[in-house]
Structures are given as C-alpha cells and as structure tokens.
C-alpha cells in the first residue's frame, strides 16, 4: 500500500494543495485569489517535477487500478504544464470582468487530479471516476462568470451533454465488464485475446469510444464544442482547449491500445471514421465563422481529427505521433488563446469577432506577428513547428498501410489551411479596425513569446528530445 501511495505522489500533491487552498479561500476570501493562483502554479510545478522520479521505473498501484508508466508521465507533465499556464491567464482577465475568485485555482487543481487519473487509468472504474472528476470541475468553470448569461448557458449545455456522454460511456463500460468479466484493461485484453471478440464486447467498445469521443470533441460528438467554447469565459476556453484534450486523448489511446489491443481491427474502423469526419467537418465548418472563439473550437475539432489519424495506425509510432501532436497542439493553442485574451477594445471590453483583428499588423505589429506565426503553424506550413506533428501522424498512418487515410488527411489539412490563412489576410491586408487597448501584461507577453519561439524554426531543437520522449512513452503501452 505504501508503495502504491508513492506512485500517486503527483495526484496527492495536487489534491492536498487544492484542499489547503480551499482553506485559504474559506478564511481569506477573494483577496487571496492571486496568491493562491501562484501557489497552485507552484503545486503544478512540484507535481510535474516528481512525475519522472515517481514513474521512472514504471509501476502498477492499487491492484492495477492505477498505472504509473512513461506514457502516463509524458501525458501528466504536459497536462500539468498546460493547466498551470491556462490558469495564469485567468488572473488579470477575471480581475477586469466579473470577480476572480479563490475557488478558480482550486477547481483547476482538482480537475487536473482527474486528468492525471485519466492518464494513468488501468481500469474502467478509474477511467470513469477520473473523467467525472475532470468534467465536473469543467462544468463549474464553464459557468464561472455567472452574471454573464452566455457563460451560464455554456455551463448548462456542457453539463447536460456531458452527463449524456457519461451515460453512454457507462453503458459501454457495463457491457464490456459484463461480457469480458473484468473491469481492468489487462483483464479485458486477456478475455478478448483468448475468446475472440463477442457481440456484447463490440457494442461495449462502440459505446465507450462514443463517450470518449465526446470528451475529445471528435465528430459526430462535437456539437457542444463551439457553443461551450464561445460561451465560457476566454481563460476557461483556453483551459478546455489544452489540458483536458490531452487527458482525454491519452485516455482514448490507453483504452484502445491497452484494453482493446486484440480488437484493433474493430476499433480502428470507428477511429478512422471519427478522424475523417473531424478533419473534414472541423475544416469546412470553420470557414463561415465570425467569432474567433468559435473558429478555434472548430480548429480544435480539426486537430483532434489529425491526432486520431495517428491513433488509427495502432502502432508504437502512431501512439508516439499522437503524443507529439498533442504537445505541439497545446503550445500553439495556448499561444493563440493568449493573443485572443489580449483582444480588448479601447474601453477595455473583450472583443471576439474576427473582423476586429483587421489591420492588426499596423496597430500592434508584434501581436500580429505572433498570431500569424501560430496560424501558419496550426495550418502546418513547413518551416514552422506545426508541420512536424502532421508529418509524423501521416508517416505513422502510411507505415500502418493506411496510405489512403494519410492522403485524405493531407487533402483536408488544405481545407483547414484556408481559414487560418484568412485570419492572416485579415490582420495584414485589411483596413485597420479600431486599435486594441494597449496594456502591459508581463505574464501573457512571456507566454506568447515562449510559444512563438517554440513554433518558430527554433523549436526544431526540441524535435529530437520530444520525439525520443514520445516514442519512449508510447513503448510503455505495447
């Protein structure tokens, strides 16, 4: 038992600091919001630092409920860093719109505990409880700005649809358990490997994948994404688009590879469908969007589709490409959202239309350059970092004899490039719209600069270590 507890040290650090910060919130009130945000960042740093040490040799805790391997370690470090950065964006934003409350970092911390659980789930029960912990905190965060009716609507919508998805997932879990006789991933894999896949298990797989597809917002379970992303406060949207996506993707990967490895033929069809539908719909539907947050929602759907192409390969290289994709995606998305967070008119009101970006290159050249870089990168234009994850994903698909899938993926990435380039065109070639408010924000500038440097060709230095780490992490699943 003691050894098990050591393996969950990152989760323990995060939950203990969440409870401690809750005490701060109870006694010091909202005055301590900034302080507790920074303390939460410290907790995240601490948790991320102990992850490699704890999971280095790899281990199984609590009778297989919790798996600490290099895959979980990779996902967790990414999740914690992304959550910490997304949380930082909230301080100055809420201070100006509505109230920044001390519960915000607490909820992010607890949500991250759930995400960590998802990344190291070794059992269907852990999967479900982790997912619920993450989602429940996310529902509250979506309606955090409760005086804003859009935020409340986003929270309600997210909650109702999320509950439905959880129901579907649970139904699949019960089918898988009933027909394979085990809730542990190992047990399910063994049952499928020995008896072959039964109809009941097949139905279970379909329902479980449908439930998880909702969480990664893959088509056809993506409907909530644009509405929730638009309605939720922008820092919360930045959070939704980064860390939970990684966690859900890691979970999906672990379930398909570890539990359903023997049924690759069956789940591959589903994943391929979701991948194609997501890349196509995410690309086409984004074209008509006027709101930058809605556009980024469709962009996230599109990107998840590309990552799923890597998963469809079902090989160690494919899984590594998924992890690599999510890493670069998180950096680009967070960078873009930090630019969007800077979009405020002269009166200090946040603006979200794409038109308001017109002529940004003349009013705010540095901001426009950063945004252009992120857009080029997400579109996958070669010298920038965003090209590489797409390259690896397609390479993995080709290596797994899915050349046609890679070809279709490349074609849809061209559709996607259209609307990313449209933003650049609006910023550089349209007549200037009223300038944004100029305001110093050191944290935000630092994040934007760091993200821009990462996606620039300078990021190529990170290719080698990231590639090794992701391959090493993927190896833990096979």
């Amino acid at each position, binding site marked *: 038992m003691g050894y098990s507890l050591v393996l969950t040290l990152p989760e323990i650090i995060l939950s203990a600091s969440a409870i401690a910060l809750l005490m701060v919130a109870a006694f010091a009130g909202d005055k301590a919001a900034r302080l507790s945000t920074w303390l939460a960042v410290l907790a995240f740093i601490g948790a991320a630092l102990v992850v490699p040490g704890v999971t280095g040799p790899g281990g199984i805790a609590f009778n297989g*409920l919790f798996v600490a391997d290099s895959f979980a370690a990779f996902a967790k470090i990414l999740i914690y860093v992304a959550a910490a950065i997304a949380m930082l964006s909230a301080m100055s934003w809420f201070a100006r719109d509505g109230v920044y409350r001390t519960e915000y970092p607490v909820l992010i911390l607890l949500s991250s505990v759930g995400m960590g659980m998802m990344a190291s789930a070794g059992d269907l029960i852990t999967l479900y409880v982790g997912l619920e912990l993450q989602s429940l905190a996310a*529902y509250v965060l979506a309606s955090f700005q*409760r005086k804003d009716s859009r935020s409340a609507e986003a929270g309600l919508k997210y909650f109702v649809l999320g509950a439905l998805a959880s129901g579907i997932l649970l139904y699949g879990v019960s089918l898988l358990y009933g027909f394979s006789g085990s809730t542990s991933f190992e047990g399910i894999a063994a049952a499928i490997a020995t008896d072959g896949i039964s109809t009941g298990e097949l139905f279970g797989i379909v329902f479980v994948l449908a439930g998880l597809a909702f969480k990664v917002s893959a088509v056809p379970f993506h409907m909530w994404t644009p509405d929730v992303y638009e309605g939720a406060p922008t820092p919360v949207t930045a959070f939704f688009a980064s860390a939970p996506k990684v966690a859900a993707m890691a979970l999906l990967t672990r379930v398909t590879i570890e539990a359903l490895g023997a049924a690759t033929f069956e789940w591959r069809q589903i994943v391929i469908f979701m991948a194609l539908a997501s890349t196509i719909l995410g690309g086409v539907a984004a074209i008509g969007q006027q709101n930058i947050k809605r556009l980024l929602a469709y962009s996230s759907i599109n990107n998840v589709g590309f990552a799923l192409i890597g998963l469809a390969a079902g090989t160690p290289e494919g899984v590594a490409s998924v992890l690599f994709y999510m890493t670069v995606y998180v950096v680009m998305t967070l960078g873009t959202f930090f630019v969007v967070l800077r979009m405020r008119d002269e009166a200090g009101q946040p603006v979200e239309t794409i038109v308001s970006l017109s002529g940004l290159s003349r009013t705010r050249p540095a901001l426009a350059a950063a945004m252009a870089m992120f857009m080029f990168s997400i579109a996958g234009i070669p010298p920038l970092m965003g090209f590489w994850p797409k390259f690896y994903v397609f390479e993995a698909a080709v290596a797994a004899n899915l050349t046609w899938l890679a070809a279709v993926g490349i074609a849809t990435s061209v559709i996607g490039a259209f609307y990313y380039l449209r933003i650049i065109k609006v910023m550089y070639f349209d007549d200037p719209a009223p300038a944004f408010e100029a305001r110093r924000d050191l944290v935000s500038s630092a994040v934007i600069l760091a993200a821009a440097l990462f996606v620039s060709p300078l990021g190529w230095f990170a290719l080698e270590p990231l590639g090794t780490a992701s391959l090493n992490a993927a190896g833990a699943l096979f």
Partner: protein
Amino acid sequence: MGAGLGREHCRRCALPLSRQPNLKGHDRNVIQTFTFYLFATIVIASGALTILSRNPVHSVLWLILAFFNAAGLMLILGAEFIAMLLVIVYVGAVAVLFLFVVMMLDVDFAEMRAGFARYAGFGALMAVVLLAEMIFAVAAWNAGGVSVASKAAPVDPSVPNIEALGTVLFTRYLYIFEAAGLVLLVAMIGAIVLTHRTRSGLRPQNPSEQNRRRPEEATRNMNPGIGQGVEL
C-alpha cells in the same frame, strides 16, 4: 466464516445447498427464474412507460416502479445491500426530488400535443431503426453464445453483503473511494461557486460581539427634571 464455499452446490443454480433450506434445489430455481422474469418484465415495461407517458408526473411514478423492480432483481442476485440502497437512495431521495421538480414545472399540455404531428415521421423512423437494431441484436445474441452467468463474481454466502462490500471498498478500491470523495468535494465547491453571493446591507448576528457587550456601554443613566422628556 468461510464455511459456505466448501459445501455442496446445486448444479444448475450454483448456489450451495445450505442456502436452500425448505425447497429442493430446482424448485427454488424455478421460483427464482419466475421472479426474475416477472421483475425484469416490469422493469422494462415501466422503463418504457417512463418515456412514453405524456404526463411528467406519471413518468416519475413509472420511474419509481422501475427502481423498485431493479431492487427486486438485485435481491434475487443475493445483493441485498444494493437492493436496499436502490430503494433508499433512488426511490427515497432521487425520485421524490424529481417529483417535486416536475410538479414545479409549468407544463403546457396543449403545446405538448401540438408538436406530435410534426415529429411523428421522425419519431417513427427512429423507432424503426431502433427496432431493426434490436432484432439484429437478438439475432446476434442467439448466434454467439452469451455466457454472462458463468462469469458472475463469486459471493461467499457466509459473509454479509455490507461486510463484503466494505472489505473491497477499503482495500482493493481504496484509490477509487478516495477519488470519489474528491468528486463530491468538487460538487460541493461547484454548488458554492455557482450560488453563493455576498449580500450587502445585511445585519448578521455576531455572537462574540454580543457577548463582549457590557452594561456600561449599553445603558446610560439619566436624571431628567420633572416634566421634561428624555433626550437620547
């Protein structure tokens, strides 16, 4: 304690003969089968009526019936604790809460009927699809043998249900138990974040201030002249 498993078991129902005191093994099995089908039929029928009945209050009532029968199914499985839990938690709390919510809804029955014709075609299509799926599912079930029963978790009859659950809950599933606690904590924080507001202009009671108050601060001795009022 562990005496139960070593005894002779009935071949068909896998229950130890010691648990079948009055009836010969298979008579009990027949009754079990009969009650299973009775409960299962009513669960499914009332589940269907929950979504079919036009009146939401009736829906909740059907739902309560479904919960009761699910509890009956659990009893047959020998999981009496879960059966009681179903009755207490779902029937006692959740369903009654539903009933209150439904009664507070402003249900417009005329409008409910108006939409019927418009959605009838779509609804019928969905029904046909679902029916076809069910036929396929049944066919598949007939073809590929389903052997759920043989994989059911073994129950030691000498250990009471609650004890058995408690034992695994605090050993094997300790991690999940703690995580479930965190989920509840998040629910609590969420409820507070979304509903708590600080009102201004209130005069809350402050007991420590009240206790600190001395007669000297609270009273003043006056000595007004005769015929003059008191000025405060």
